[in-house]
């Protein structure tokens, strides 16, 4: 029981991180119908910018300020990364055949991974735990269930970010424009919405969220390397699909589910195959529920 509770806590924390990344996937797929293969690597870049900022500020400022700086700088720079990637690699291919943006995205993913690898080295980088300690929830048979301050911090930050983001999407003109373009791009354009700009904003916001996830990941695991984007990317995409592509609450829900699956699988089955387990979930979900749990039903007009 205690052990399960621990896995639950771990899973939720991890799931929040995946959820943040998943939102980026689901937004982009919803608005321009492509899987942004490079999104996972933007998450990785966010983590690296985080570690660079924290290293630069180490010893100078207090921990909360340092973290805030890391979050803001990382989100801002990753927003620029996301914007640039869309402009350079995807926008020119918008009218082209189906495979073109995907290949370009794969290329972009390889570029980002190797850009970080060649510029910063292939070694993994570690930082000490900046938010140590926590509370012990319960003890059972000598196993202590720990809820760390770090985990609480991650959940809180994620929830705050999600709240802001939900506000933007549901209450602001930008959010309305995004939903309009998602439904019918041509019509939205005819109504005066600048579709290019709206799409750019989608990438900007998605990338900023991924950056937050990256910094959270850095704090949580303490170790990053240039390849974390690949794995996290597929898992986050699985989360987006699980929750239903195009559905934002679905992405978060999917993220939580994936986090829980990964935590429980690691806890009760073999750690070695935890990634394989998540990937299998992706296949199974798409086989039986192609539109995910909360997704829209896409009926092709015959």
């Amino acid at each position, binding site marked *: 029981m205690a052990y399960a509770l621990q896995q639950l806590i771990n899973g939720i924390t991890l799931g929040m991180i995946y959820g943040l990344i998943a939102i980026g996937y689901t937004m982009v797929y919803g608005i321009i119908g492509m899987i942004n293969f490079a999104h996972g690597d933007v998450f990785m870049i966010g983590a690296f910018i985080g570690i660079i900022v924290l290293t630069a500020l180490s010893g100078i400022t207090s921990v909360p300020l340092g973290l805030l700086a890391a979050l803001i700088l990382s989100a801002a720079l990753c927003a620029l*990364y996301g914007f640039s990637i869309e402009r350079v690699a995807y926008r020119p291919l918008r009218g082209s055949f189906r495979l073109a943006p995907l290949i370009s995205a794969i290329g972009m993913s*390889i570029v980002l991974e190797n850009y970080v690898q060649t510029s910063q080295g292939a070694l993994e980088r570690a930082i000490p735990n900046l938010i140590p300690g926590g509370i012990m929830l319960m003890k059972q048979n000598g196993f202590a269930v720990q809820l760390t301050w770090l985990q609480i911090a991650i959940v809180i930050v994620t929830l705050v970010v999600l709240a802001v983001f939900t506000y933007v999407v549901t209450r602001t003109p930008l959010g309305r424009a995004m939903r309009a373009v998602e439904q019918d791009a041509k019509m939205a354009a005819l109504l005066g919405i600048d579709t290019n700009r709206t799409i750019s904003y989608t990438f900007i916001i998605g990338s900023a969220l991924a950056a937050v996830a990256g910094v959270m990941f850095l704090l949580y695991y303490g170790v990053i390397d240039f390849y974390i984007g690949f794995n996290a990317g597929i898992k986050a995409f699985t989360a987006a699909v699980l929750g239903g592509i195009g559905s934002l609450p679905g992405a978060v829900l999917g993220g939580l589910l994936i986090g829980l699956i990964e935590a429980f699988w690691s806890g009760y089955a073999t750690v070695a195959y935890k990634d394989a387990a998540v990937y299998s979930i*992706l296949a199974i979900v798409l086989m039986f529920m192609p539109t995910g749990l909360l997704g829209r039903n896409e009926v092709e007009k015959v």
Partner: protein
Amino acid sequence: MKNLGAILKDSAAVAGAALLLFGPFLGLRLGDNEAGSLTLSPRPGLLAAAVALTFAARLLMLLWYQHRPPRIIPVKLSAGTAQAGKYIAPALLIAAVAMPLLPGIENSYIDLGVLIMTYVMLGWGLNIVVGLAGLLDLGYVAFYAVGAYSFALLSENFGLGFWECLPISGLLAALWGMCLGFPVLRLRGDYLAIVTLAFGEIVRLVITNWVALTGGPNGITDIPHPSLFGLSFSMAGGPGTFAGFFHLTPDPKQRTTYLYYIILALALLTNWVTLRLRKQPLGRAWEALREDEIACRSLGINLRNTKLTAFAVGAMFAGFAGCFFATRQAFISPDSFTFIESATVLAIVVLGGAGSQLGVVLAACVMIGVPELLQSLQIYRMLIFGLALVVIMVVRPRGFIATRQPTVSLGKAKLIGAAMLSEGRG
């Protein structure tokens, strides 16, 4: 130069963005100090160079757009390239066959030829799935791995040799292709891609972690090289070896040449089967599947069988290639079967263009040959590869050879432009 001011402003903006983007990664360098904690060292020179380069590149690009000659695509030109195509293919074939026999050619060049030929074969195999049937498979490396590991395990446990295992590898890979094809039958486009990617990764994870069967990350060693009618290519010379039989001094070039001709033959087999199948109802059904699945259904074509056959046949050739890979290296490990391999082969197929056989050859030569030749750039190899993918997609999304030859005609068959083709409808 009326817009020079605007061009300069644009370039400056791009350079500014570059400064921000490259700043953390090029301008600073993470390192470790003696205490083991992280340090940052500045690299202003590198950053300045990168920003300046970006500025210059953008400036030149905008100037080029403004001043380039108008593009007239003469109809005759495309017919001309088609004519050239007719002569290029046989010429390349002759060059490929003759290459190892050139006097004084270095072993490393023949070895490069073996490498390129392997990718050509993989490209031709994937071409069946992606180019002909339009099924976007990002996990092709899984079948390559099945072929390689089945040979390695069969030779390790049953002592079978390369030639015996070759058909078995192909068969096992084909079966695996059908197994992987079955769950993805109803998936389209991007979803199909990501699930096949996931399957490829699952295969790699299983290989890496099922240590009892596959040796895990350490892989399998001592895989036998192929023999020629029982003659081995051992460097020891003497009876029972190729060198001994033909009274030659043992030379690594001999085995490499033998391997080269094996892969050349396998690749040509793949090509021949593909060309034949294109003229068969099956090949046409594949192409129709790519064009419009729903129309196929309305014509009575069994989509499930057609798709599964595409996966199976494509996988079979990857299996052959994998078996060959194992025998060439004499050692395999999960590191050779990563997603990057799938991406590379896919890039070769797409860059070659429109499912063209010749295009695959050209793309493989460029994508594999060039990085190997530029050894000094090895560390940047993958970076350049990724950049090349993006650049080529943006500049020429249809690939090198953007036309399709109809498989049957009543009169003079006309080339069909690639703009007519639909891709990846799953």
